């Protein structure tokens, strides 16, 4: 009976809480905050340059057009966007100047979060602004943007703490249970994302046949790799395709097995590099690289002290 209980432990509320609310150094939460807010800053800066032309009146994604795309009979209002459960302050902004101001405010918010200024209030405001982009630019967000916006709210649990914005953000050595909760939530969400992505790849035969890189090169998505260059190198194309998917599988398995968790980090980094080089989605690649900090050796080193 004891042996059975050892192999099939039944989680209790107490063991669950021990997992989620373990006190850890809050510099770990700060590291996550800096990484995520950096990617969010890059995303906001992108919209600073392209948002006014695309989203303002007269742009390809002006509000009237997006409303029609989303199935509204008339141009949607802020209330409509809330009722549709896709609230966005950008719905109320239609002039290029207003959208530029929103992009600047969004970028400043990300910068403040990165520097650790303003605590939870600034994190909350910045998250709402990022959600605004995501909900407003229907159809133009990709996996990277969705992963980033999905992870950001966990920073509200513990935005980290620094003595001064001009000092390194990781200087705080205190332990807090809220830091543990934030980091656990980020890690579990990322693990679910990685597992879903790995399983999604299994739905395409090209991943099994080792032709995914060829397919993307043929579609003109791969950066610096054209289909002709892969033509005489069949094995190379197969190798890159298999390695790319394998790196994601290693990232998933490595995260589950503590002894090889370092490989999880390497795997996710390699997958991120592939996203940029083969899929041509540099922003998703960037998000993969910055989120890799959540499963990096720095976190693992702390984990081993637990044993």
């Amino acid at each position, binding site marked *: 009976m004891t042996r059975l209980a050892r192999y099939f432990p039944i989680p209790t*509320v107490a063991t*669950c*809480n*021990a997992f989620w*609310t*373990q*006190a850890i*150094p809050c510099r*770990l939460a700060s590291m996550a905050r800096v990484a995520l807010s950096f990617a969010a800053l890059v995303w906001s800066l992108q919209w600073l340059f*392209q948002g006014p*032309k695309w989203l303002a*009146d*007269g*742009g*390809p994604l002006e509000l*009237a*057009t997006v409303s*029609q*795309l989303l199935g509204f009979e008339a141009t949607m209002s802020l209330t409509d966007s809330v009722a549709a*459960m896709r609230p966005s302050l950008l719905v109320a902004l239609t002039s290029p100047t207003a959208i530029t101001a929103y992009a600047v405010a969004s970028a400043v918010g990300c910068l403040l979060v990165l520097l650790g200024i303003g605590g939870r209030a600034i994190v909350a405001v910045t998250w709402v602004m990022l*959600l605004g982009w*995501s*909900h407003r630019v229907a159809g*133009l967000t*990709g*996996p990277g943007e*969705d992963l980033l916006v*999905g992870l950001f709210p966990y920073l509200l649990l513990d935005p980290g703490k620094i003595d001064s914005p001009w000092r390194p953000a990781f200087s705080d050595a205190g*332990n807090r*249970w809220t830091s*543990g909760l934030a*980091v*656990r939530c980020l890690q*579990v*969400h990322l693990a*679910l994302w990685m597992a*879903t*992505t790995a399983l*999604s790849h299994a*739905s*395409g*035969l*090209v991943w099994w046949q080792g*032709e995914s890189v*060829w*397919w*993307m090169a*043929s*579609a*003109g*998505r791969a950066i610096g790799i054209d289909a002709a260059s892969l*033509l005489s190198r069949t094995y190379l194309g197969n190798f890159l395709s298999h390695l790319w998917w394998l790196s994601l599988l290693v990232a998933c398995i490595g995260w589950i097995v503590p002894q090889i968790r370092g490989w999880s980090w390497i795997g996710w980094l390699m997958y991120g590099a592939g996203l940029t080089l083969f*899929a*041509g*989605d540099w*922003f998703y690649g960037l998000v993969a690289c910055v989120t890799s900090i959540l499963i990096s050796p720095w976190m693992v080193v*702390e*984990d081993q*002290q*637990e044993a």
Partner: protein
Amino acid sequence: MATEATSNQPRWTRWIGPLAMVHFSLIALALSANLSPSALQSQLLQWFAPYLRTANWELGQVPLELTQGNELEGPFRVEVLTSDSPAGEWSEYPWSSLNLQRPLRDRFAKQFAFLGIQQEEAGFALATSLAKAYPQRLPALKSLRVLRLPTETREEWIYRQEGLEATAPEVCFEADAVRLGPDEISWVPRQESRRSSRSLQKPSP
């Protein structure tokens, strides 16, 4: 991670574990329903939409798989025909004037192409928006179309290099601009079987 006694935590933290389990069950539901949700998953997502959709945790068919080797993945290209183009040749829409990054531009073109294939009304709205965002050349704009360029398997590509078979791009959307006034535009589809002419919104001054 360094362990520390948790006795100094507030009493309400005992609810955190169960709440986190519920939250991540919903996240797992949203992620697993991304590719092709079952009827049950769709219904559950509908129930939890106020929580999942509002916070952008419900993805809505984001291509996590990156590629499935499906021809419908594109690439897509938006082209324009202007009255001053040499020999009536189509040219790619001048995206550089709109500052859009490549991945976002591809997603936009894909969305446009699907609307064209499904003969959706919103396809004309996108065509008008693109026409309006093309202000310097707008008077010269005659037609607009979206092409799906052929994506080939390795074997098909080899055949094409040997001149045995050439795959033609597929036209997903193609319409001629009809000017109803100096600032009003209408579209007439080139393939009459697809749809009829529709008046579109008057551009703002």
